[in-house]
């Protein structure tokens, strides 16, 4: 229950600051392609709550219908923690939708702009410094 409250609270704070870019410590453009926006829905397979940026791995289908495991880069753990995220906000097996941008190196790495939970709540936990305002 408390966890739910935290997510809702964090979401409200995120909405308040939603117009501001959420910040990483590095340039977006060296790694990610703003011309390759991506949206997918899948299941969480692994969460790395580590500095300098969290990674959430998500099993999903790519555009051709092939199964892929996306490595989704998010924000810095402490910054997310201050927003109300916790290490177990996303758990293995959770369904999740991700909006972000694909890496330039051709891998299945994604820079997240927003995470959408099954009930439609949207968590901004992106690492999108330098990324376009809207995918």
């Amino acid at each position, binding site marked *: 229950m*408390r966890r739910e409250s935290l997510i809702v609270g964090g979401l*409200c704070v995120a909405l308040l600051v939603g117009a501001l870019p959420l910040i*990483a*410590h*590095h340039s*977006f453009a060296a790694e990610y392609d703003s011309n390759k926006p991506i949206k997918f829905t899948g299941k969480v397979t692994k969460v790395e709550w580590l500095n300098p940026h969290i990674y959430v791995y998500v099993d999903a289908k790519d555009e051709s219908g092939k199964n892929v495991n996306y490595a989704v880069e998010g924000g810095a753990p402490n910054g997310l923690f201050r927003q109300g995220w916790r290490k177990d906000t996303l758990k293995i097996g959770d369904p999740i939708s991700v909006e972000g941008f694909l890496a330039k190196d051709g891998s299945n*790495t994604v820079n997240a702009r927003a995470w959408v939970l099954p009930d439609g709540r949207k968590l901004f936990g992106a690492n999108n*410094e330098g990324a376009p305002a809207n995918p």
Partner: protein
Amino acid sequence: MRRAVTAGILILMVAGAASAQWVDVPLPGVPRDRNGKPNLAAATPKTADGKPDLSGVWKNLDAKYLNDLASDGVQVSFTPWGAALYKERQETFSRGRPSESCLPHGIPDAMMVPAAPFKIIQTPGVVAILYENQNRFRQIFTDGRGFPKEMTPAWIGYSVGKWNGDTFVVETRGFNDSSWLDDGGHPHSDELHLTERFRRPNFGRLDYEITVEDPKAYTKPWTASIRFEFLPDTEIMEWVCENERDAARSVGK
């Protein structure tokens, strides 16, 4: 909608108070209103000797200064060496920046990472800055010493500070040439000389001005002005760089 947002914030505050020892700590010494809300417009705190007390956790609100210290239209006049290096970094989208390999941010960019605030601890003789970013620290000596005759090249150099009225003036030399002034790649050499001016006009605000002098990289000094905001009731947390993938994945164009 406003009611829902307010409710959300209240839920966050209540739930946070029950569970978070790091980010909702009602710290003493913070002026508060009747409801316990920090009053950031209160007067500047003072130390026992009457100087403004800069102590507290501070945060840069605008990532643009991390990307480009010369935002806000600051004119930067490069030497040919500085111009070539900056151009190369810009063209490769900052590939090779130190933090891509878990190497440190320097001055001032360790303070410019909005997701990682910094803590100033002002004591007689030394002002310490604890950067949450990569958990590094900096000492600014205020006991009247000058620069040592010999300095080993350092990422954050050697800093001495003194008060000029209500402004804390810090001079730093003794740099290596490894750090970048910002993620955009404004370069510097080991001839870098920084002058920083800190002023706390009220409880919640810290005005910061930095002048960059480096005859190898710039034909004349240039100055950037940035404002930090007091972050109440939070502590600096652990930050160990253990999962950095940027260097391996950086394409750079």
